[in-house]
């Protein structure tokens, strides 16, 4: 996050130094674009606040530890799809689950869907790319995540 601020400040000052008018135009454009998309963001934030309450970390942890591998993969991908969790929370959680005996394969299904599939970000993706693209991209991503999980299972010797 700090890097983002440093990069933005740097880019903004260089731009301002080279061309003042263009830079002001860029900031105005940024403001306009941000206000235009903000209703979609309100939708996202409301959805996140409710889902995080309904599906807290304990629920995710307990549902990944199922004995049936294929059921766990499906559950894990489902959990990963409907939740939103930043990396600094998701990976330490993953490391803990690993110690508790959750397989790499299930973990992979969870983290990959977490990153690629966004049910909660649907309002934003839709606002930019339309409903059809959003649905297709998310379905494809879901299957890619399953593919990654199965491959992880092979590599770590968890299948066969």
């Amino acid at each position, binding site marked *: 996050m700090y890097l983002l601020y440093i*990069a933005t400040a740097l880019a903004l000052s260089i731009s301002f130094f080279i061309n003042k008018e263009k830079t002001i135009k860029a900031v105005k454009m940024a403001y306009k674009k941000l206000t235009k998309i903000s209703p979609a963001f309100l939708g996202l934030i409301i959805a996140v*606040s409710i889902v995080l309450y309904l599906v807290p970390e304990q629920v995710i942890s307990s549902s990944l530890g199922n004995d049936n591998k294929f059921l766990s993969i499906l559950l894990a991908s489902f959990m990963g799809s409907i939740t939103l969790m930043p990396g600094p929370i998701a990976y330490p959680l993953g490391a803990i689950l690993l110690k508790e005996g959750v397989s790499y394969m299930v973990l992979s299904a969870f983290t990959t869907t977490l990153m690629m599939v966004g049910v909660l970000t649907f309002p934003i*993706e839709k606002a930019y790319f339309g409903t059809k693209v959003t649905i297709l991209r998310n379905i494809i991503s879901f299957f890619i995540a399953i593919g990654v999980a199965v491959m992880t299972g092979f590599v770590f010797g968890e299948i066969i």
Partner: protein
Amino acid sequence: MKNKIIKTAAVLIYIAFVSLSFIFGYNPGKLIGHNFASFSLEMIKLLPPVFILIGLFEVWVKREFIEKHLGKNSSVLSYVWAILLAGPIAGGLIPAFPIAYSLFQKGAKMSVIFTFIGAAAVCRIPMTLFEASFLGIKFTLVRLLVSIPLVIISSIWLGKYLEKKDYIIMKG
């Protein structure tokens, strides 16, 4: 219009529910309110710099440049550029959508922007380092080696499919 009324009503109900929960001490509602506040704060911190960078991109980068490297007649290298561009992005899909949309408006082809979005999800550098240190380098490598080719292949397919259907990405 009807849709707008429903959305506004939903937001008002949400606000009423959360405020009443705080007044009467209803815990689930209070927790939802706290989640709302903390996630809003995160978005308020993330979005302004992202959109300023998008604004700078819009005024400085020429359309011809994007068209040449990421457009319809660009080479296979365009997918490599899309992945490299996604590498340093912080925050995942949320900032990736507006950036991808700007790229698209400047003339990048659909398969390239889908690759960019996919790459922003699976191979951001800061996140990958974090993942490797917690779950092991082997885990991260398998994930990258499987997902990147699949992201590129599916993006090319999706781009072609949408072009064939003359799908027009609407203005956001």
